[in-house]
């Protein structure tokens, strides 16, 4: 049997490749794009107001709700704003760390720093968010530490969400930037210095343009992860994010939840298009 099979495939390279790829590509198309397609279709369905059963007639009602109801505009605006702030914060925090790791630290120090950056990823997401919840609470360590200065912590709210998200997704920003900086030959930096550029000019004209695609790669992670998260807002604030609105609707109005789920996808597509315009993908 196996001999016959081998004989059948012999000399048919296209079939060989086809058979090899059928599994993964099938999974990608059915499991991944297929579920996306279902999501897309469901967004055009409606719910029978009496029984709450999904009615499979195509209509634009859900999108009308999203546009007409001011609360959904607020939720989308808030989510995108926090996602942008988190991305910016992480980029500013991650760049020096990544630069030190890639260009300054010794081999040993580099290994230690990589472990230090990865370490938080080894512990559970929930443990981390709950620890922040405890730290931010009225009797928590943040208020305790600020009390002698006569200050007060942010408490629960949008600021808390921004803090916690920035903490959670920082490794996803550090690692791509580190990888990007590592690929810049040291000789380029030396050459820039030899030609009389100040460290700042070298950074601005040589390092930043070369590392920019890596920053964008990292920002895609932080931005997308913040857009999709709903547990952190639930635990450290009363604010609703896109994920919370989806969660609230998923059980009794699945079509509206589907329509809401399309919002982050659209935002991400817009984000990627802008990133491409900025030249983020030219060196990949």
């Amino acid at each position, binding site marked *: 049997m196996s001999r016959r099979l081998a004989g059948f495939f012999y000399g048919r390279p296209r079939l060989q490749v086809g058979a090899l790829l059928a599994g993964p590509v099938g999974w990608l198309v059915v499991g991944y794009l297929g579920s996306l397609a279902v999501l897309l279709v469901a967004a055009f369905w409606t719910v029978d107001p*009496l029984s709450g*059963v999904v009615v499979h007639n195509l209509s634009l009602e859900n999108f009308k709700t999203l546009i007409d109801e001011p609360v959904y505009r607020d939720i989308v605006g808030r989510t995108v704003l926090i996602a942008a702030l988190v991305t910016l914060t992480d980029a500013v925090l991650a760049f020096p760390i990544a630069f030190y790791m890639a260009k300054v630290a010794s081999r040993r120090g580099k290994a230690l720093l990589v472990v230090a950056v990865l370490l938080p990823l080894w512990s559970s997401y929930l443990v981390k968010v709950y620890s922040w*919840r405890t730290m931010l609470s*009225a009797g928590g360590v943040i208020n305790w530490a600020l009390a002698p200065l006569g200050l007060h912590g942010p408490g629960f709210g949008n600021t808390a969400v921004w803090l916690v998200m920035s903490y959670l997704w920082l490794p996803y920003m550090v690692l791509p930037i580190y990888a990007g900086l590592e690929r810049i030959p040291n000789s380029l930096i030396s050459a820039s210095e030899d030609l009389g550029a100040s460290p700042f000019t070298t950074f601005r004209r040589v390092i930043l343009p070369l590392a920019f695609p890596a920053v964008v790669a990292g920002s895609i992670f932080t931005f997308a992860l913040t857009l999709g998260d709903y547990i952190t807002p639930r635990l450290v604030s009363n604010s609703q994010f896109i994920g919370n609105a989806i969660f*609230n609707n998923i059980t*009794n*109005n699945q079509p509206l939840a589907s329509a809401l789920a399309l919002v982050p996808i659209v935002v991400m597509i817009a984000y990627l298009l802008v990133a491409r315009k900025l030249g983020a993908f030219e060196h990949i």
Partner: protein
Amino acid sequence: MRNQDTHPARTAWLVVAGLLAFMLLLAGCGSSGNSTTGKELTKVGKGEGQLSLISWAGYVESPWTKPFEQKTGCKVNDKVAGTSDEMVQLMRSGQYDGVSASGNASARLVDGGNVAPVNVSLVPNYKTIFPDLKNQPYNTFNGVHYGIPHGRGANLLMWNPNDVKPAPTSWDVMLNPKLAAKYKGKISAYDDPIYIADAAVYLKAHQPNLKIENPYELNETQFNAAVNLLKEQRPYVGEYWSEATKQVAAFAGGDDQVGTTWQYQYFLLKGEGQKVAASPASQGFLPKEGATGWSDTWMISSKAKHPNCMYEWMNWIVSPKVNAEVAEFFGEAPAQSLACEQTKEKNFCAKYHADNPAFWKRVYYWETPVSECGNGQNNCKNYNDWVQAWTSIKG
């Protein structure tokens, strides 16, 4: 590897066309109208060996499922649901035999044809269930029984007596904006659309011109008044809670000072020695307006694959000893009147007012808001409206 020879545009179009075809196929497949109302059983036969349940956390636990499995041979598989909405969603999958539905889920399940009538004569322990739990609007529809009562609880007003003075006798401490402002950021409210009913209970007492009869049957004017009240309350709310543990931690940590709670959290915090108080006996244990509450019902799926095991289970869970065990484990009033003699803590039933009908008279059990108002009119806000309003209240 870079592919230079093929036409990327053509490939992309093929993918899009394929997806579109797939979508159309899906859209075409699903035509509605599959609501079959199951028939009720006439005789409990031999168990099918399996039982799939959806329950609240703490309702299906090994101390009483193990003996059940030994006795009936029905192996119990339990799926814990976090909210009533989740229960409805899971029941619609048709893969479960039964559910411990609260009143804000039961009407939806009946309307959707997801649950079948229950022949209560096949459940011997039903006879001794507290009479005020029978024939309620959330378990009996058009005179047909749709489930076996399991237990109930009330939503209490709880406060920290160190911070909240004088002791409140009314919900106005958290619902009247003037009074609530005093506890800005320290108010704890329940995170669920059904919380709108709490505002309706308050308005029923304080704005009689709205003529609210049932806090779950609200017409446009009444509904808007309740929603606006909660929008006014919103800036003063410190935290909306949905998990009991979250509220317990918030009261213990000083983040919350006054809020709506379940008996479970109140007794838990008291047991931990925390400074909490609730309405005393002299006020009937509830604020003067009364309160919302919940009463859970075991319902059987219209597509149950193991109906005999489900009937065995419904009888088992309200048997005196088991119902006492569940009630003490979960922290609620048992539905079975004979359970009060079986509780480990001797005054458990008194503590939870299980055998005190006067207490429950002032409790408005959760119901699913539907368009039919009960008075023959059809202009009430349905649950979907409640969900949308809740989203806009939270902002």
